[in-house]
């Protein structure tokens, strides 16, 4: 049996760890609240955007905008969105699993340090990585989006797909891969964003009114599509942040609970050892007093 001093030392170190994980849990919890709010606040916006796209759909054709043109896919473009820091459970590892399954030729772009490290380690064709602060200001994300979209328009890549952890709720984050460009099948794509944006009322989908456009349908489309792509990808980044902090909070809570359990077990063991030592001592004293009597 370990000596009492060893056990005491272990208890102390586990308590220290618990203190740290507890602090990290609290920090993650407060950050999570903000990130979740940011991710959810833009939902009405996304819904309205979807509605306008629905209204535009009858007026679109493939030739109208490069985003709508279908191409033969030679090289896929994958934008991987991860967290900068670790200690957030299986969040990033789950994303890497998706990336590992991509066997077709692809070029990679990364937002988040963990993803960059992974792509470098697995020797993927990493074109560029972009640092984005924790609170993810739009201006920083925009740099990444503009770069990827430019590569797409130049024909370096033939698709833009985003790998990111979709925020469902605090406990569940789902790693997904979502194609963003080309928007080849606009109708199907609109249906998907309607599902994504949540409940756009049924009657609104059915009412295919003929809209008047100012200045013109083309002009609105030209302004709306890049705008939409920016919004969409930015939304993914916000979702990633919300997922990251949620996952970290849960991971830290588990770590804290484990530490508490461990401290309990160690304390029990310590008390047993202490009691054993005391009993031993008493026995010795009793034995010596008997023998001398």
């Amino acid at each position, binding site marked *: 049996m370990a000596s009492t001093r060893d056990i005491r030392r272990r208890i102390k170190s586990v308590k220290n760890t618990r203190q740290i994980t507890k602090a990290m849990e609290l920090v993650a919890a407060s950050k999570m609240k903000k990130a979740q709010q940011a991710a959810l606040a833009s939902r009405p916006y996304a819904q*309205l955007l979807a509605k*306008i796209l629905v209204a535009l759909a009858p007026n679109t054709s493939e030739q109208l905008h490069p985003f709508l043109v279908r191409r033969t896919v030679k090289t896929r473009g994958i934008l991987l969105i991860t967290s900068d820091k670790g200690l957030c459970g299986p969040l990033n590892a789950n994303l890497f699993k998706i990336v590992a399954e991509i066997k077709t030729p692809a070029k990679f772009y990364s937002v988040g340090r963990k993803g960059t490290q992974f792509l470098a380690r697995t020797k993927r064709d990493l074109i560029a990585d972009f640092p984005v602060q924790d609170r993810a200001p739009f201006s920083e994300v925009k740099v990444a989006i503009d770069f990827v979209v430019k590569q797409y328009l130049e024909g370096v890549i033939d698709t833009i797909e985003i790998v990111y952890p979709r925020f469902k709720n605090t406990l569940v984050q789902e790693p997904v891969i979502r194609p963003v460009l080309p928007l080849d099948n606009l109708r199907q794509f609109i249906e998907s964003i309607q599902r994504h944006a949540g409940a756009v009322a049924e009657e609104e989908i059915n009412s295919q009114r003929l809209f*008047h456009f*100012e200045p013109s349908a083309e002009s609105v489309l030209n302004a709306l599509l890049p705008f939409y792509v920016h919004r969409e990808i*930015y939304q993914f980044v916000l979702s990633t942040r919300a997922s990251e902090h949620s996952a970290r909070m849960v991971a830290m809570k588990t770590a804290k609970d484990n530490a508490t359990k461990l401290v309990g077990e160690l304390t029990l063991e310590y008390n047993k050892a202490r009691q054993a030592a005391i009993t031993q001592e008493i026995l010795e004293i009793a034995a010596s007093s008997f023998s001398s009597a």
Partner: protein
Amino acid sequence: MALTLEIVTPEARVYSGPIDTVVIPTVMGEIGILPGHIPLITQMTEGELRVTKDGKVQILVVGTGFAQIDGDKVSVLAEPAIALEKIDEHAVETALQRAQDALKAKDALEPAEIERLESVVRFSVAQLTVKRRGR
């Protein structure tokens, strides 16, 4: 039948409720919306958006975006939008100054950045004009 107005930005739903009329700043000039307007989708530009309800006028300053008029529903998608009472003149002035200073070194900037800064300037100027006229 009254109109329903909804103004949303990426951060929040700024306005939602029944109104009498609304004037929207579009790229082709201001348009007034009354009940029974034809279905319309239009591009918005920086400017003031005037909401009239029960004879009272409320003014909001909006950035670029889109507006959709569908039957008696007016939906405005703006980035950003701010109510007149909430405009902080001092903060706007500093923002304007910063943007203008940054624009002085135009050659060093990327076109997208210039566009963004000019949008900031237009939005700031629109806020200041509206705010100061009120006195």
